[in-house]
């Protein structure tokens, strides 16, 4: 009887160790993925346009309270200034989240996992399809300048997985970015 009890306890212990180890591996993989995603997002400059700049004591600096949440919805913009014919054909708001050029006016997207206004409901396949094709969800309208999706499309599937995993791990920020405007409605 004692032997049977000991065997049961030992089996339970081994099972617990196996489950814990497996969970730890999953957690470690996730943490590794988040960390590499953070590295890629930082090195590729995603924050340059998807995190609004604010003017601080040292000049423009990213407003990390709005990290990767795109163009601030409450920031009402007047019509973009008209530029004379010539090579200067693009202007940007001081936040670097709103851009105007021959394509119209584009606003940088909310990449945080907010389900209503960000990419919280996106699956990894949606994200990959968007950056691989340069089309919204791989099927909709084209992504607009200055989004350098061709650079992101050059990432491996494993890198894209890490970028997406990282983006899903950051704080969700509710911010409904405006729709782009065609040139006629600037």
């Amino acid at each position, binding site marked *: 009887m004692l032997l049977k009890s000991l065997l049961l306890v030992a089996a339970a212990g081994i099972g617990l160790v196996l489950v814990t180890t497996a969970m730890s591996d999953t957690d470690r993989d996730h943490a590794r993925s988040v960390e590499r995603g953070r590295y890629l997002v930082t090195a590729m400059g995603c924050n340059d346009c998807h995190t609004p700049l604010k003017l601080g004591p040292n000049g423009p600096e990213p407003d990390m309270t709005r990290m990767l949440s795109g163009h601030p919805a409450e920031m009402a913009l007047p019509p973009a200034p008209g530029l004379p014919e010539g090579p200067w054909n693009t202007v940007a708001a001081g936040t670097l989240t709103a851009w105007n050029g021959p394509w*119209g006016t584009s606003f940088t997207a909310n990449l945080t996992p907010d389900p209503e206004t960000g990419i919280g*409901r996106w*699956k990894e*396949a*949606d994200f990959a*399809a968007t950056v*691989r*094709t340069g*089309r*919204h*969800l*791989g*099927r*909709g*309208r*084209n992504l607009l300048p200055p989004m350098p999706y061709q650079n992101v499309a050059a990432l491996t599937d494993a890198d894209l997985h890490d970028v997406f995993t990282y983006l899903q791990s950051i704080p969700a920020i509710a911010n409904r970015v405006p*729709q*782009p*405007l*065609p040139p006629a*409605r600037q």
Partner: protein
Amino acid sequence: MRPFEWTRLAAALLVLCGTLGVPAWIVLAAGSGSAGAQAPRELRETGLYADPSTQRIASDVLAFRPQYPLWTDGARKRRWIRLPAGSSIDASDPDAWRFPVGTQLWKEFAYERRVETRYMQLGGDGRWVYATYVWSPDGRSASLAPQRGLRGACQSTSGAPHDIPSELDCRACHQGTPSEVLGFSALQLSSARTSREPGDNAAELQLDDFVARGWIRDLPREFRERAPQIAARSERERAVLGYLHGNCASCHNARGPLAELGLDLEFSLARGSSAVRTSVGVESRFQLAELERSERIVPGAPHASVLFRRISSRDPLLQMPALGTHVVDTAAVELVSQWIEQDLAPARLADTHSSHQRQR
């Protein structure tokens, strides 16, 4: 089998293929079991033609025409299918046919002249190969287009550019539904037709013809006994639901990658239509600039309806479909306008609703 024997077998196959006039790559791909297929460099090598010099279609390649075709800026289209000898399509799920390995489909696009022929082939690994062949101006040959496509490869009849799609463009539409084949289905081939595309001819076979030839098996009895048709309150509504099915539902359905949007314009022979339920009075994510709240369809008001506005536009930020067209399908837009204005007018909808309530 020793290497020498492999070499002898391959040589024998090539000689046999040459004798029978069958493209060798088809035989070798079919024999490779799980191997994926690759598109050949020239259209003539796909086996579409019995005689490439006269472009006579091969006898085991059959023509068909879907009743709700995709609008491509007024292009004239011809379509063909070939199944490997002795194989058939499993039609037991009327909304998701399963095609045998080796199935080939072609679709030819022409304006003033032939422009391109798109091609699909199901490989042994279960993956479809997508390719398109661009016709030479003299119409004598068609060569494989670059994988990235060709923007503005030529002009359509109205002078707008015609783009040769990239492989990703092909996959964007075709991989939105389980079977990936869009125009060859029970509904699309049905003999109960409301086709808007001119040019039907006897050589283009319909559902019954393919069943009779043994190309389609296990089609549910109800569709063998009565040609499948979209259930609708009027012929106009049937035509509209068919148009939305043929032009929008490859993306906007409840089974594919965009299901989360909750806009289902697919007509399912098993489930019917959810187009009205998922669009009429439903708030749109895409908001029209001049409205506080935009809805996909506002009954009685086409110009306040996002769906109508987007199919009426070719502004790249607004247009639907988002790819594959530069010219508005004015006849379809007029049809949808009348449907929203008259069939979906609030009074009509209220009648339908109260009648539905009474039935319950």
